[in-house]
């Protein structure tokens, strides 16, 4: 298989370990005087956006940051709980850059680029250094050194964390760096602004059309380069662990302006979320993967067992992860754990009222910790109750905030009965196709963080999203953007009365007019929920050709229905959240179709993409490396028309193998 001529990944020559160092040292530079006249637009203010904007402004570029929330600090990176990976080997357990690289490639089911992933592993350590220097309060040991914990898919402790709020602390670190630049006048902050389209001139990205969400006015902004740091598209499923505002609009608009979309079907379903409780549900809440360190996952051995969890004796419980994967046990990667839960529930062993949940049980480890504490305290023959009380305190210290959150939502006390959990949409590995410089197929248009497709292959390991967002923003884009901008130093700022800007704004205005003119009967949420149901049922944890084919037709019908029956109340020139949602859902519908087409095209199972037709006798994902070891990059060719381009994935340093966690 050869890569499409339209895709040049620009991976540097040389041996893997030296590629990045050598490239970084030879990439073109922009001198400080020229940086001052080069303008960069950053859309999104999460880990990738804030870190990129701050770093580029520090270097001297003129930066404008856009976010739809009221403050950059609210971007959804804030909600990441568990931690951030880095190959520091502080625990002396044999970790290394290579091991992190290897785990990530394997965890991604051999569908990521070697060079990108190795670069990610190389800079991972710098991220921790940078964050600590900013004052991020990571968890520490009594000696004052940094603390680590384990995460799924690895056998070393390389995850740095700040209680269950690591994402928050990392984002606040990046946000503080960003606000410092805002205060110095190097960054112009445009909060409560949403990007409505990319403006291209002579094939290059030259700016954006934005809508001021407070006044409703459309604005034109010029930039020599545009960075999309707009996160993932998990909300295409309506219910996900994403924030309500997370959307694909920026990436989708870029796609329609020529940026190829990479691997759209790769979605991550997180195994430990609080199950759906009713049709009113607006979002799903994650229970951190770190809980799998101490929680054991099980279902009753008997189908449709109506007894309470406590009344089911040990020998009648099926600890199915420990049974199927003894080496990794409850800490198998997310895709494996999620599918295993679905398999048990589909087979009729699910628990709770909906029967769509499994138990995550802390009892055994509570007793184990209690015994250790009792020994520490020199208690002889303590009663079971004493041991349990001591163990409960240990669990409370480790996971107290998560247990409280669980109780808040379900009204059940997880200290007294096991948690009920079920998989939920969490992250999207797919995204805009980018080359080694993080540039999309539109020159001058970049995609960073979850918005791009690049580093996680078909499945992301826990605590790697934060790593990638910050790697892209702090340590990759500041260098790689020079390759493009060094050629742009002669380009003067283009006035926004240029016809390309005028035309782009007119198109946005036309769409707004159209949305208001429909005056239908159904709310935007109605369509979003309908789309979510199609996607979850037919393009969710397990997919098959029949379902995907049906889904494509259903989505096309839904699209027609949307554009004839949606009701958008209010007016344009005001704070109008329904109008915002309408734009986003319209784009999600189009994306949903492409996701199904991508999933239908990929006749194999890998990572988060599980095609029921392609599995081993044991029910594991069955890859087809001969035919599908490629990145599917889709080009937009008009309504419901996408052309597939392939980027061949070459594995020169890692031997392709069936993933084995048993």
């Amino acid at each position, binding site marked *: 298989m050869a890569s499409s001529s339209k895709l040049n990944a620009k991976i540097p020559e040389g041996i893997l370990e030296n590629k990045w160092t050598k490239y970084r040292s030879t990439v073109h530079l922009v001198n400080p005087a020229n940086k001052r006249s080069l303008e960069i637009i950053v859309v999104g203010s999460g880990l990738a956006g804030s870190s990129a904007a701050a770093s580029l402004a520090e270097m001297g570029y003129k930066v404008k940051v856009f976010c739809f929330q009221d*403050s950059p*600090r609210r971007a959804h990176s804030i909600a990441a709980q568990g931690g951030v990976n880095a190959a520091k080997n502080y625990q002396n357990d044999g970790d290394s850059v290579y091991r992190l690289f290897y785990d990530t490639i394997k965890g991604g089911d051999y569908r990521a680029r070697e060079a990108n992933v190795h670069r990610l592993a190389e800079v991972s350590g710098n991220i921790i250094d940078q964050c600590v220097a900013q004052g991020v*309060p990571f968890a*520490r040991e009594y000696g004052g050194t940094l603390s680590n914990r384990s995460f799924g898919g690895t056998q070393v402790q390389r995850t740095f964390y700040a*209680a269950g709020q690591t994402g928050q602390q990392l984002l606040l670190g990046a946000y503080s760096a960003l606000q410092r630049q805002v*205060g110095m006048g190097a960054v112009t902050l445009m909060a409560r602004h949403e990007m409505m389209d990319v403006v291209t001139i002579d094939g290059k990205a030259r700016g954006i059309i934005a809508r001021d969400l407070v006044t409703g006015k459309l604005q034109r902004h010029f930039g020599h380069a545009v960075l999309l740091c707009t996160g993932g598209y998990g909300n295409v499923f309506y219910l996900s662990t994403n924030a309500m505002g997370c959307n694909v609009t920026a990436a989708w608009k870029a796609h329609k302006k020529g940026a190829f979309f990479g691997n759209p079907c790769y979605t991550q379903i997180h195994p430990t979320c609080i199950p759906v409780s009713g049709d009113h*549900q607006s979002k799903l809440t994650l229970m951190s993967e770190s809980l799998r360190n101490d929680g054991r996952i099980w279902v009753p051995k008997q189908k449709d067992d109506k007894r309470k969890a406590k009344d089911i004796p040990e020998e009648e419980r099926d600890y199915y992860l420990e049974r199927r994967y003894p080496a990794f046990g409850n800490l198998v990667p997310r895709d494996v754990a999620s599918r295993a839960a679905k398999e048990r529930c589909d087979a009729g062993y699910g628990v709770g009222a909906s029967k769509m949940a499994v138990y995550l049980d802390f009892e055994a480890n509570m007793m184990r910790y209690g015994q250790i504490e009792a020994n520490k305290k020199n208690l002889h023959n303590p009663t079971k109750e004493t041991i349990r009380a001591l163990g409960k305190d240990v669990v409370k210290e480790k996971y107290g905030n998560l247990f409280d959150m669980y109780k808040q939502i379900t009204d059940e006390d997880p200290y007294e009965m096991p948690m009920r959990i079920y998989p939920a949409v969490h992250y999207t590995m797919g995204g805009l196709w980018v080359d080694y410089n993080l540039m999309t197929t539109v020159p001058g248009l970049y995609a960073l963080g979850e918005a791009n497709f690049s580093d996680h292959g078909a499945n992301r390991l826990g605590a790697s999203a934060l790593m990638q967002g910050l790697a892209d923003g702090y340590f990759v884009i500041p260098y790689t953007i020079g390759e493009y901008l060094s050629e742009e130093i002669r380009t003067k700022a283009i006035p926004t009365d240029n016809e390309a800007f005028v035309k782009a704004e007119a198109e946005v205005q036309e769409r707004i007019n159209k949305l208001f003119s429909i005056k239908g009967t159904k709310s935007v949420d109605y369509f979003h929920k309908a789309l979510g149901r199609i996607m979850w049922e037919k393009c969710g944890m397990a997919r098959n050709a029949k379902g995907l084919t049906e889904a494509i037709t259903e989505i096309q019908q839904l699209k027609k229905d949307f554009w004839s029956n949606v009701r958008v109340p209010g007016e344009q020139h*005001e704070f109008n959240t329904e109008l915002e949602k309408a734009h986003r859902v319209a784009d999600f519908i189009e994306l949903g179709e492409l996701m199904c087409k991508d999933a239908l095209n990929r006749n194999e199972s890998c990572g988060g993409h599980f095609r029921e037709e392609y599995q081993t006798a044991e029910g594991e994902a069955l890859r087809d490396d001969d035919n599908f070891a490629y990145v599917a990059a889709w080009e937009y060719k008009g309504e419901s028309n996408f052309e597939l381009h392939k980027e061949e994935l070459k594995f020169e340093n890692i031997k392709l193998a069936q993933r084995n966690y048993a």
Partner: protein
Amino acid sequence: MSHGNMNLTLKVWKQKNKDTKGRFETYDAKGISPDMSFLEMFDVVNEQLISSGKEPIAFDHDCREGICGMCSMYINGRPHGPKDGITTCQLHMRSFKNGDTIVVEPWRSAAFPVIKDLAVDRSSFDRIMSAGGFVSVNTGNAKDANNILIPKDDADTAFDAAACIGCGACVAACKNSSAMLFVSAKVSQLSLLPQGKIEKQDRVLNMVKQMDEEGFGNCTNTGACEAECPKSISLENIARMNREYLGASFTQNKA
């Protein structure tokens, strides 16, 4: 579409934009399930308003898991409602009774002008952060993370302060609309850590100056902020900032 069997009356502040006067409007919330979150109850009401051709109620929200700090409702006289230690999005309807009347208002402060209905402009917080809520370290300047050893207790105390989500409930709760808890949380976090000590004097002076310019009121130590903070940020932080400010004012080596 019915979800549950609770029926409630909502008295909600409606205001078109910051330049117009607002007033209360009354809405019926029917068929509410006790398992809904407070915001999901609003979703249901809005859905009904839209389908009957009326304008929905505007409110801020995003993550709906209590961490982004976007949601901001003043419910029955308390920011984030009747339960301690949570945000509005984590409040569930089982905290209310069938037949209750619930009064919902926006955060009220001169420094938080209303944008529409229940959504307010909290950019004053961002400007305070820009004035000094950071460590001046450019990307690439950091040395190995374990070269800075920090006593666990200091790291833990700094973390507790850093847990602030910037929602503004402290300002909303305070009878004086003071932002001391928010500002002191950041001042404390960074003054407790060796990384932040270098510029701690400038930081506290500049952040307090910006806070005063934004039009927040003065702290009278009622403790309402701490009691209403969804992340339980401690009043100790305010005392620490007072200390830091006093020290910086009198010992700073600048004219």
